[in-house]
C-alpha cells in the first residue's frame, strides 16, 4: 500500500494508539516550545537589538547552540534527573516532564538564534523615530520587533520543527514507554525495528502533516498579530 494511503488509513481508522501518540507528541513538543520561547525570544531579541562589547563572540555562541546534538542534550538531562543525579529527587526520568525539559533545551537555541538574526536586521532609525515621537523604551522595542514579526514566527517554527522531529533525546529520557512516553518519532523507530516499514513510513507522513498543521496555525497567529493594534 502506498504510504500516503496508509497514513490516511492510520488517521481515519479511529485507531486509539495512533491518535494517542500524535496528541502526546503535540502536547510534549508544544509545552517544550512554550518554555523555549520564554527564554529564547527575549535572549535573541535582547542580543539582536543591543550593541555591546564582545557581541560577535556571543552571537557565535548562540549560533553554536544550533549544533547541540539532541542525543547529547538527552544524555545530559538523563544524568541530571536519573536517580543518582542532582535532580533525581524529582523522579521525572522516563516521564513526559523529562522529555519537555530536554526538548526545551534543544528548541531554545533555534528560537534565540533566528530571532537574534531577525532583531539584528531592524534598521536602528525605527527606534530613534519612535523615541522621538514619544514612545516609551518598551514601546519602542516592541515596535522594532513588530518590523520583523514574520521572522519571529519563523524562529518559533524552526524551534518546533527541531523538536517534533527529534528522536535521540526523547528516546533516552522518555524511554518510549507505551501509553506514557511514546511519541511519533519513537514509534517510528519501534515500527522500523519490528520490521513494519510500511507503518513506519505512514507515521512519518502523519508527522509531516502535523507539522504542516502547526505551521499553518503559526502563520495565522503571525497575521493576527499584524492586524492587532500595538496599543490596547
Amino acid at each position, binding site marked *: 500500500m502506498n504510504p500516503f494511503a496508509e497514513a490516511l488509513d492510520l488517521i481515519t481508522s479511529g485507531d486509539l494508539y495512533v491518535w494517542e501518540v500524535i496528541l502526546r507528541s503535540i502536547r510534549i513538543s508544544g509545552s517544550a516550545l512554550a518554555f523555549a520561547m520564554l527564554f529564547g525570544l527575549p535572549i535573541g531579541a535582547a542580543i539582536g537589538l543591543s550593541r555591546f562589547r564582545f557581541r560577535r563572540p556571543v552571537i557565535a555562541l548562540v549560533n553554536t547552540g544550533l549544533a547541540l546534538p539532541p542525543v547529547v542534550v538527552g544524555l545530559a538531562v538523563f544524568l541530571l534527573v536519573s*536517580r543518582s543525579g542532582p535532580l533525581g529527587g524529582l523522579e521525572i*526520568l522516563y516521564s513526559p516532564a523529562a522529555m519537555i525539559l530536554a526538548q526545551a533545551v534543544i528548541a531554545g537555541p533555534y528560537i534565540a538564534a533566528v530571532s537574534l538574526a531577525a532583531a539584528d536586521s531592524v534598521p536602528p532609525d525605527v527606534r530613534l523615530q519612535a523615541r522621538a515621537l514619544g514612545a516609551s523604551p518598551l514601546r519602542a522595542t516592541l515596535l522594532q520587533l513588530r518590523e520583523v514579526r514574520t521572522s519571529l514566527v519563523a524562529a518559533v517554527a524552526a524551534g518546533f520543527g527541531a523538536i517534533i522531529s527529534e528522536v535521540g533525546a526523547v*528516546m533516552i529520557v522518555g*524511554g518510549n*514507554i*507505551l*501509553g506514557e512516553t511514546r511519541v511519533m518519532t519513537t*514509534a517510528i523507530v*519501534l515500527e522500523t525495528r519490528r520490521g513494519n516499514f510500511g507503518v513506519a513510513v505512514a507515521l512519518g507522513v502523519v508527522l509531516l502533516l502535523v507539522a504542516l498543521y502547526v505551521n499553518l496555525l503559526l502563520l495565522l497567529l503571525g497575521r493576527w498579530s499584524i492586524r492587532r493594534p500595538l496599543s490596547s
Partner: protein
Amino acid sequence: MGSPRLAAGLAGLVSGIALLGASCAPQPATVVLAGTTSTHDTGLLDSLVVAFRADHPQSRVRAVAVGSGEALELGRRGDVDVLLVHAPAAEFQFVEAGHGQDRVPVMYNDFVLLGPVDDPAGVRAAGTAADALAAIARHGAPFVSRGDSSGTHEREVALWAAAGLEPGGRPLEGPAREPAVGEAAESEGVPGWYMESGQGQAESAFIASDRRAYALTDRATYTVLKDILELEVVLEGDPALLNLYSVIVSSRAAHPEAAARLAGWLTSEAGRAVIARFGQAQFGEHLYWPLVVGESLPFPLPGGSPPPSG
C-alpha cells in the same frame, strides 16, 4: 518538472551522489550480517566481525544491530545476507516461507527474570517462569516488556501464554492471535503495571531498574550491566528460558557465496572459539556458549558448570 535545465541539474546531482557513494564503496562483495541488539549491546557482534576479518582479510563484512523482527524482515527483502537471531518460532516460519536457508543453531545462553531486590511479587518462590509471570500479574507488580517483536519479546509472549495469560495479565481467550500493528495499544485492557518500552535489551533493563520493575533479559546483557542495575536475578534455570541463537542465510543474499562463507565461519571451530572466549577476560564467565552441530541441547542451563564441549 518541465524545465530541461532543472532535469539536467537533478540528473547531475543524483549522478554526483552516486559517484561519491561508489567511490566509498568497498571493491569486494560486502556481506551484511544482522545481529540482535542483545549481541550488539554485549559487544559479541563486533568481536565476531573483527575475528572474521582477521581470518578472511579478503572478505568484507558489515554488521548491523536490529531486533530479531527487523532482522528477519531485512533478510526477507535481501537487505542483509546473514542473520544471527534468537526467535525460533519466527525463524521456522521464515525458513518455511522460503526467505532463508541453512538455519544452524550456533550458540545459546539463557534468559533470566530480573526483579527488585525485595521481590514484591515473591517470584523467587515460583518454580517456573510461567508461574513467576502469573505471580507478577497477580500482584500487579511493575513489569517492563520489550514490546518490539524481538527474540526476547517473542519469548516473553510465549511465557505469558504458557501461564495461560495474555501479556499484561488477562486470561487467554481462544487461540493465540498474530499480534497486529499497535495492537499493544489496545490499552483498554492492559493494566498500568505492564509497561512496553519498545526498545533494546539494555534500555529496557534501565527502565525496569528505574521503575523497580521485573523484566525478562538474557544473561549476557545482565552480566554486562549488573553493576549499574538495581535489579537481581529472581528466577533462572527453567528450561523454557533457553535462549538459542541461530545463523540463517537469506535466500535473497546479494552475494550468496560470500554469505555462505561468513555463515560457515560463524558455525565453524574458529567462530565457536570466539563465542566461547568472549567475555572471559572482562567478566570472568561465559556470556554465550557455542553449540556443536548435532549435539543435544544442554540441560540444566548455564550459569554454573560449563557444558562438555566448551
